[in-house]
C-alpha cells in the first residue's frame, strides 16, 4: 500500500498565515504579501500578491502550492519590491532561494517579512491538484528535502512538519548515471537535450536567472545558438548548469515547468554534489558574501595545476 503523508496540519497553517498576513498588512509592517490562493481548477493553487488586509482570507496553503514565489521578488513582478517591505510565504526550499538572492545583492533581508511554512511536501508536477499527498504523488525534491522546517523567518506557524524517510530518487539516479561510462552518460544527456524546444521556461521560472539580458539573447556576439538544434540546446543547458553551480538549492521549478520533461534538477543536484565534495559547501543555508566558485582560499584543491 502506498504510504500516505499527513497533511492535516495544512488547514491550521492556512489559518495561521491568513491571520499573520492580516496583521502585518493591517499594521503597515508590509505593503504587500506574496502567497498562494485557490485557483479555478478544483484543488489547485496559484501565486497571488495582496496589498489589502481584507484579502488575507484568500491566502491558502495546500499540497498544490508548488511554486517558488521568490521569483516574484526579482523578475516576474519587478515593481513589487520597490514599494516597501514585502511579506512572502515561503517553504523551506523557497527560503533557500531567498538566502541565495540576498548573498548576491538582489534582496535585502530588512526589506522582507518572511512567513515560513512548516511543510511536509507538495505534489509532483504530473499529479492532478486535488489528489491526496502520498509517497507516490509527492514531488521528487520533497523526498530528499532537508528544510521541512524553515529557519530564520519572521513568523512560522506552530504546527510541525512530518517527514517520512523515503527513497531519494535524485541521489539514486545520480548514482546510476555516475556508474555509466562517459560515452553512455553523454548519450543519455544528448537524448535529453535533443528534446529541448528552447522555450526557456526553465530560465523564466528560476529565481537565480535574474539577469536583465540573458547571454543567450545576445547577438553581438552570438554566444548560444537560438534555434532548437542539438548543439545550441546542449550549449544552453551547460551554461544553465554551470551558472547554477554553487547557487541552486534545488527548488526544482525548472524541472516542474519543462514541457519536454528534461530532468533539469538532476543536473543541478549533480553540480551541488560536486560542490559539496570539493568545497564542503551547500547552497541556501546562510547568506554568504562569497560562494565557493567566487572565492579563492589557500586550502583549495590545486592538484589539477601540477
Amino acid at each position, binding site marked *: 500500500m502506498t504510504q500516505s503523508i499527513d497533511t492535516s496540519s495544512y488547514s491550521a497553517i492556512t489559518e495561521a498565515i491568513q491571520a499573520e498576513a492580516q496583521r502585518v498588512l493591517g499594521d503597515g509592517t508590509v505593503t504587500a504579501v506574496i502567497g498562494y490562493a485557490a485557483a479555478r481548477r478544483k484543488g489547485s493553487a496559484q501565486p497571488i500578491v495582496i496589498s489589502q488586509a481584507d484579502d488575507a482570507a484568500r491566502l491558502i496553503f495546500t499540497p498544490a502550492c508548488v511554486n517558488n514565489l521568490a521569483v516574484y521578488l526579482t523578475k516576474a513582478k519587478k515593481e513589487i519590491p520597490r514599494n516597501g517591505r514585502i511579506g512572502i510565504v515561503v517553504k523551506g526550499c523557497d527560503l533557500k532561494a531567498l538566502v541565495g538572492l540576498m548573498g*548576491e*545583492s*538582489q534582496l535585502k533581508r530588512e526589506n522582507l517579512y518572511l512567513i515560513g511554512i512548516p511543510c511536509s511536501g507538495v505534489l509532483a508536477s504530473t499529479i492532478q491538484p486535488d489528489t491526496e499527498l502520498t509517497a507516490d504523488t509527492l514531488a521528487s525534491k520533497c523526498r530528499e528535502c532537508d528544510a521541512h522546517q524553515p529557519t530564520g523567518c519572521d513568523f512560522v506557524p506552530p504546527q510541525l512538519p512530518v517527514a517520512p524517510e523515503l527513497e531519494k530518487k535524485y541521489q539514486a539516479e545520480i548514482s546510476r548515471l555516475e556508474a555509466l561510462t562517459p560515452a553512455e552518460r553523454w548519450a543519455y544527456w544528448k537524448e535529453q537535450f535533443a528534446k529541448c524546444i528552447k522555450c526557456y521556461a526553465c530560465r523564466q521560472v528560476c529565481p537565480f536567472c*535574474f*539577469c*536583465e*539580458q*540573458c*547571454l543567450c539573447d*545576445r547577438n*553581438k*556576439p*552570438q*554566444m548560444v545558438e537560438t534555434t532548437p538544434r542539438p548543439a545550441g540546446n546542449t550549449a544552453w543547458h551547460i551554461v544553465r548548469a554551470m*551558472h547554477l553551480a554553487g547557487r541552486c538549492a534545488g527548488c526544482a521549478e525548472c524541472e516542474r515547468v519543462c514541457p519536454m520533461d528534461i530532468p533539469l534538477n538532476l543536473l543541478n543536484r549533480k553540480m551541488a554534489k560536486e560542490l559539496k565534495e570539493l568545497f564542503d559547501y551547500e547552497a541556501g543555508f546562510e547568506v554568504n*558574501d*562569497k*560562494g565557493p566558485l*567566487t*572565492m*579563492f582560499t*589557500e586550502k583549495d584543491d590545486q592538484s589539477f595545476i*601540477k
Partner: protein
Amino acid sequence: MSRIGVFICHCGENISRTVDVERVAREVGLLPGVSFSTDYKYMCSDPGQNLLKNAIQEQKLTHIVVAACSPRMHEKTFRKAVEAAGLNPFLCEMANIREHCSWVHENKEEATVKAVEIVGMMVERIKKNRILPGITVPVTKRSLVIGGGIAGIQAALDIADCGHEVILVEREPSIGGHMAQLSETFPTLDCSQCIMTPKMVDVANHPKITLHTFSEVELVEGYIGNFQVTIKKKARSVDEDKCTGCGVCMTKCPQKKIPNKFDQNIGLRTAIYVPFPQAVPNTPVIDRANCTWFKTGKCGVCQKVCGPGAVDFEQEDRLIVEAVGAIVVATGFDLYTIDEKPKGSAIKGYGEFGHGKIPDVIDGMTFERLASASGPTGGKILRPSDGKEPKQIVFIQCIGSRAREKGISYCSKVCCMYTAKHTMLYHHKVHDGQAYVFFMDARTPGKSYDEFWRRSIEEEEAVYIRGMVSRLYQKGDKIVVMGSDIAVGVQVEIEADMVVLATAIQPQKGADTLAQKLGISYDKYHFYSEAHAKLRPVECATAGIYLAGACQGPKDIPETVSQASAAAAKVMTLFSKDQLEREPIVARVREAGCVGCFACKKVCAYGAIEEKEIRDRQGNLIKTVAYVNPGVCAGCGTCQATCPSKCVELDGYTDEQIVAMIEAL
C-alpha cells in the same frame, strides 16, 4: 575602413627556419582590411622599427599587427614605435609566431599554415581595437622587504639610503638569516659574522627602516605603487620598547636545554632567548611551547628579574597594515634533509644513508656552526655524538642536487665552493686530520673560485675522489663510507669519524603560500619565477614585486648581494616618478545590462570593482551596478569571465574580439 599593416619578423632564423615568412606576408596581405604586409629579418632593430614607422606614414596605416615573438618580449617596443609614428599605441598588437609556432613545430609547411592563421586571428581582433587613453596612478614611495637575510638587508639598506622608507619583515626573532650562521665565507675566508653583523646594526639604526622581526606577511592587497600589506607581529612576550637587552632573563631562565635552531639544534638555549648573541634586535622572545610559565602557569622568573618590566605574558599576536608601493621578496632558502619524506612528496630522502639517523652524519650548515667561533663548540670541530675530534672526515657533494631520482634535478651551485672551504677550515683546525671529498665534478665559475678550489687540494691536502657514495653505515664509532672512484675504476671504502653532506638548496617552507598571497608565480620546486630569465631577472611578472636572493634560485653571497642591489635599483626607478603610467587595458561594465549581483566584485583580486548607484533625474535610485576603477584594474579579465550576463568587457579582449578571432580560423 581600417588600413591594417602586417609586419612579419624573421627573428634572425628563430622564426624563418620553420616558417616561410615571405609566404605568410603574401597570404595575410590578401586578407580583407590588410593594406600592407612585409617581412624583415629583425623587426625590433632600429631599421626594422623605421620600416614600420615609414610604412605607417606612407601607406596611411590605421592598425598594426607585428607577427614576431611573445608580446611579453617586445609589445612595448613596437607600441612605442607606433606611437612615435603618430598612432595610438593600442592600435598595435603582436601575433606570436615564435613561441606559439616556430619554436614548437618542425614541419615547415604546417608551421607556415599555422602562422598565417595566428596572424589572421590577430587581424580580425585588431579591427575592433579602440583608441585607449593613458592611465596614471600615484606611487606610494615606501617599500616592503620580505626576509631579513643578506638579500633583504642589502635591498633594504640600498632603498633606505636613497631616502625612501622601508618596512623590513623577518619571520625569525632576529635578522641575519643563513649568512649569520656561516663561519667563514668563500673565496676570501673572511668571517661571515664580521661582515654581516655591521650590516644588521645598520638596518636597526637606519632612520628610514622600520624593522618587524618575528613577523609574517598575512595578506597583500592592491597593485604596483599602491599595495596594502597586513603584517602579523607574532607575540614576542617581551615589550620591544621597554627591553634594554641586558640578558638577565636569559641567564635566570630555568629551561636551559632547548635545541637552538640557529645552531642547527646541536647547541642549546633557554626558553626566553635571542637566537645568537649578535642578534638584531637584541630583544628576547619567549618560546611558548617550551616555557614553564606557558606550560604550567608557574615560574615567571624572567618577569621577576626584568628591571624595566618588559616581560609580558599576556602579549598577543597583532596585525598591522602598511601602505607600500613596491615589494622585494627575499625569503631565501632552506636545506634538503635526507630524512624520510612524507608519501606523495617528490623529494625521496636517503635511505642508503640511514635517513639521517646516524648522529655523526651532518649537513654543511651544521659543519658551519661547528667551525664558527660563536658556535656551540666555540669553533672546535667536534663530533655531535661523543664530542671527539674527527681525524678522518668525508664530505659528500650533490646530496639531493642533480639527482632526478631523488626529486631535484638542478645544481645547488654553492656546494662545490663551500665544501672546498670546509676542507680548508677542517685542515686549519685539525692539523693531523684528513679530509676526503666525493664529488661528481667541481663547478667553480666565479671570480677567484677555481683558484680557491685548487688551493683546497694543492695546499690544504684535501683528497678529492670523483664518484658517488652508495651507502653509509655505523660500525662501532666509525661511519663506513662505501663509494666508487670512477677515475681509477675501483670501489672505495673509508672508515670516517664524521661525514658532512652538501645537501641541496631548496626554497623556504611556505614559499608557495607566500607566492599565492603576493600573486607571483613559482616553479615546480617553489622557487619564485622572474619575469624574464635573461632580461628581467629581478622582476616578477606581477608588477611592483621584485626578487632578491636564493628564493629565486640557488645563489652564493656575491650574487645574492648583486641581485638585492639590482632589485633595490628597480624599486628606486619606480619611486623616481610621482605618477605611474599604467597600461590602459582595463575592464568596463555595460551598465545597461548589469544586474548588480557583484560576482565580479567578489572575484576581483585587486579590489578594483566598486558599487555605483544609477539614479533618475529626480534622484530616485534605479539600480546599483558595478563600476571598475581603471586606476586599480590590472586587466586580468577574471570579472569578464565571471559575469553571468557578459556585461563586463576587457578592452582589447572583448567577447566580440575573441569570437572574431575564433571565426577567423
